[in-house]
């Protein structure tokens, strides 16, 4: 479904070259939960950016379904990201002046009653049913992240990319957030790729990949 072949990404500072991702190949099967773990600076976030199309690799190829990212124009790749991928980041990035419900709807591709009902259902499922009209500043950090999860899922993405989604949360809230994502995967929503430095968050993963110095060292 989502596969990468010999992916490489370099960061250049003057004449020095740092290999953020160094010849990585992997595949994420439909409906699977893949964990990507590694210390800070190991290249796991960069790999996630390459897999999600947020960055273009210096070398190698990424394929999603029938699409080869290298041959997709920027606008098409952006649309693909918008329609088929969901994102959860370490920070919630909620829009300050919108309510929790409206923030979820920001992630919606089609804005109709069905999507609105689904957004509300998602918020209820993440325990925010009574806070639909609350603004981000009226929510706790954990609640904001749950809204961010709902936003990532509202358009029923084929792949959910979560980059350190629990880093700014306490252990219990972190588990809650990962469980919510895992539940989406279990209910047949799509694949899940979670990048984290905390192995405890990946207990339900089908596969855990470890990265160090830009390379996958265990699969």
């Amino acid at each position: 479904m989502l596969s990468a072949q010999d992916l490489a990404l370099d960061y250049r500072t003057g004449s020095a070259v740092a290999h953020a991702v160094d010849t990585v190949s992997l595949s994420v099967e439909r409906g699977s939960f893949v964990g990507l773990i590694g210390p800070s600076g190991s290249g796991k976030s960069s790999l996630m950016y390459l897999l999600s199309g947020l960055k273009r690799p210096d070398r190698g190829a990424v394929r999603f379904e029938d699409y080869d990212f290298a041959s997709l124009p920027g606008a098409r790749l952006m649309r693909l990201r918008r329609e088929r991928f969901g994102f959860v980041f370490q920070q919630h990035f909620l829009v300050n002046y919108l309510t929790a419900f409206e923030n979820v709807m920001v992630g919606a591709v089609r804005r109709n009653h069905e999507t609105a009902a689904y957004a509300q259902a998602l918020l209820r499922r993440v325990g925010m049913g009574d806070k639909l009209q609350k603004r981000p500043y009226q929510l706790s950090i954990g609640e904001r992240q749950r809204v961010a999860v709902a936003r990532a899922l509202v358009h029923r993405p084929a792949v959910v990319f979560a980059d350190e989604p629990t880093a700014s949360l306490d252990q219990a809230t972190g588990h809650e957030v990962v469980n919510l994502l895992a539940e989406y995967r279990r209910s047949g929503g799509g694949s899940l790729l979670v990048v984290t430095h905390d192995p405890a968050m990946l207990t339900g993963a089908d596969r855990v990949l470890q990265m160090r110095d830009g390379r996958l060292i265990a699969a």
Partner: protein
Amino acid sequence: MGNPLSIWNFYLRNKRKVLPVIGILALAILGVVVTDALLASARETAYATFGSYQKLILVAPRATRDQDLANPLQDSLTRLHDVQLQVDNLDGPGGITSYYNAVIALPAQVRAQLPAVQRLQIDAANARYYAARLRGDLLPLGDLIIRVQRLQTEEKAFNQLVGQLTENPSDPRPLITYLQQHQTWLQSVLPDSAQLGRLQVAVTNASADANGLQQSLQAMNRDTSTLNSAGQNIADLPLPPSPSATIDQFRTALDRLSASLGSIEQPQPGLDQLVADSARIQGTALVKRDAYSNLDINLLAGNAQFDLYGVDQPGMTQLLTIYGDRVTAGRLPRQNASEIAVSEEIARARHVGLGGKLGNTVDELDRLPDTFTVVGIIGGPTRLGVIPLDYMTQHYLFERRYQGLIVVPQPGHEQAVHDQLQRLVGNQAFRLFDWPYIKAKIDSLIANLDSINRFLILLVTLVLSLVVGLLNNLFFRQRMNEFGLLAAIGYSRWGLIRRVALESFGVTVAAWLLGIGVAVAVLSWFNATFMVPHGLLMNVFDWNVLALHTLPIPLMVFLFGMGTVGWQLLRLDPISIIERRD
């Protein structure tokens, strides 16, 4: 289900950030509209005030005429001064008073026996009386003579300075300092119409008194001759002063002064002929002799002189007919009366109604002698003011040289009549005032204000563009997370730019409309409470001012704001925002 990122949602949820920007822009637009409207008003009011020139040509003497340049007044006064000293001597030691004292000192029995001595005594008393009167007459003349002498001294000093400037053209400072120091005094020296009037009276009196003195002195001579021929010489009786050349010279000098005053006070030579010749020009609808004068009025851009036409009574009616005006209250001025009929806007500007007073006793800048009573209010498309020709030309304070003629061409013949008039005037000391000339003068006056206004609009636009652009950028930086996220989850870059553009566009359009709306309200209020009561014109709904002149502000602000924000959005790297750990 609406778009949560719609611009309406944005405006509603960000009122505290959006409204101040709208307010600042609206205020600036209000400022531009008000200054622009006042400027347009100044121009329109000036056009309306001098609108009568659209249908007539005023033929008036040049401001400085040949006889003024020759300065006969000054020449006469200089001559008069020389002989005035001799006249004074007539009354001095050995003069009339000494003689009178000698006559009345004769023993009473001698005077009783000789009737000729009694006559001599009466004539000597008369001569003394006229000499005393003459001294009184000479006071105003003396004052003017002193001024003229001072003027001559100043002229010498001025010539020296001019000489210095010629030698050293790079240093005009002494001349400038001199002019600055003497400006007020030089103006006071120049005789005004009131001074000329008083001088005329003094000259007339002096002339009569000099005549009386001369006759008394001649009678004294005759009396002395009679006594001598009768062989009745009386010892110790001195010879009477001779009427001599002194008095004759004095009277000649007075006559010259009188003539000088007269020539200054006379209409330009050739005026009657010019009136007659102008009437023969083909295509004229009306030709009238005109004792023109004016009223001081405020035009917003500064004070101006509203021209009054001093014509005969048929001329007044004809003028009103030509302009489509009519008397809406009262009547036209009567013959030889200090009366005026004036347009209602001018009456409002001067705060007068029927029975109100105008003239230089009310406002010293009015060139109307003494006081005129408003007897008629004129309504209609053109602002007019009419006064009686005969009253003006006979009033001692009216400078008779300010007489000319008005020529109204028939429609379609304006240029032909103008050209013919110009040919008639030729090298005479007359000049033509017509609408193109007046309009050019108004435009030239307004052009300076216009330039200042344009510069201000440019400055306001630039400053506002910078300020609002800066605010936009600050606001944009606060929303960086929002744009970073949207770009990361797949919102297109151009879509984001379009959204920000719509937001900015909405703000600037709202500010523009609000500014124009408030400006219309402010101008309407100002128009009703100030402009109309002062006879000033203002078009509140001048779309040229409201729309066209204000457009650069929202346009520049939008372009500048969007330029900077759009540039940042194009270079936006969502990953750098996602990876920020703040």
